[in-house]
């Protein structure tokens, strides 16, 4: 029993050691530029605001978006960037990429993105899910990188991820119980022991 407790304690400490530094991570960040965003819901109501660098869009306070709504943005680069390419990625998946000629050599840009065109995250963005997102603009004159966290709208139970998690945990629990109660002493053949009447 002591051995069991020791091993479980060791596993718990290892779990905390692995998770603690990662969960303490980071805030919305920007290098080479600044970005301010404001989201609206599908019915046009204001949802959330964030600035990088600045408030919002952090792991503890992620920027809330509705994939049926829009995001208005105002960005300013530290240097003039021409003939550039911008890419927005989340979970290693490119959500949007395009080229920016910037022939007028402007350092500011503003506009609105209709999120109904970005549906690849739809199954994931519900409940309290926090997804790290990175946007990069690279071209002649410099590079601008903005990173932060986004979250969705709706309850956790509206997400297929919730049901996938429940199903996996139920299968794991059943297997764990099978492991626990299936550990038996090696059977001894009755004939080798002189027989059982």
């Amino acid at each position, binding site marked *: 029993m002591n*051995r*069991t407790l020791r*091993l*479980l304690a060791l*596993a718990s400490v*290892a*779990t905390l050691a*692995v*998770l603690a530094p*990662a*969960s303490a*991570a980071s805030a919305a960040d920007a290098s080479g530029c600044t970005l301010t965003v404001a989201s609206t819901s599908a019915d046009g109501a204001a949802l959330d605001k964030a600035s990088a660098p600045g408030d919002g869009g952090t*792991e503890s306070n992620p920027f809330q978006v509705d994939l049926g709504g829009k995001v208005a943005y105002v960005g300013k680069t530290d240097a003039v960037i021409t003939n550039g390419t911008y890419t927005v990625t989340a*979970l*290693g998946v490119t959500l949007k990429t395009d080229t920016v000629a910037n022939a007028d050599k402007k350092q500011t840009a503003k506009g609105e993105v209709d999120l109904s065109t970005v549906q690849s995250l739809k199954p*994931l963005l*519900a*409940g*309290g*899910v*926090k*997804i*790290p997102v990175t946007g990069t603009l690279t071209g002649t004159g410099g590079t601008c990188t903005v990173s932060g*966290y986004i*979250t969705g709208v709706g309850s*956790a139970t509206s*997400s297929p*991820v*919730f049901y*996938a*998690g*429940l*199903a*996996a*945990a*139920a*299968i*794991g*629990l059943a*297997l*764990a119980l*099978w*492991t*626990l*109660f*299936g*550990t*038996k*002493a*090696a*059977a*001894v*053949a*009755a004939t080798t022991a002189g027989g*059982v009447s």
Partner: protein
Amino acid sequence: MKARRHPVRGFLAGLFLGIGAALLLFVFGVLPFTLAMLGIVTAVGIVVGVVLAYVAPVRPAEPST
């Protein structure tokens, strides 16, 4: 007394429990949804599952005929 243990079964239990726990932690916002976090939580689950297989109490065998 020699015990018949099931590390592969423990591995699979930990794998599924780890993935399930990770997805539930993501959806309730406890952990950020990243592939690294999914891997870490799943790996911890696998370790716990295999450890469970090796420390599970031994039950008496059913006598064979």
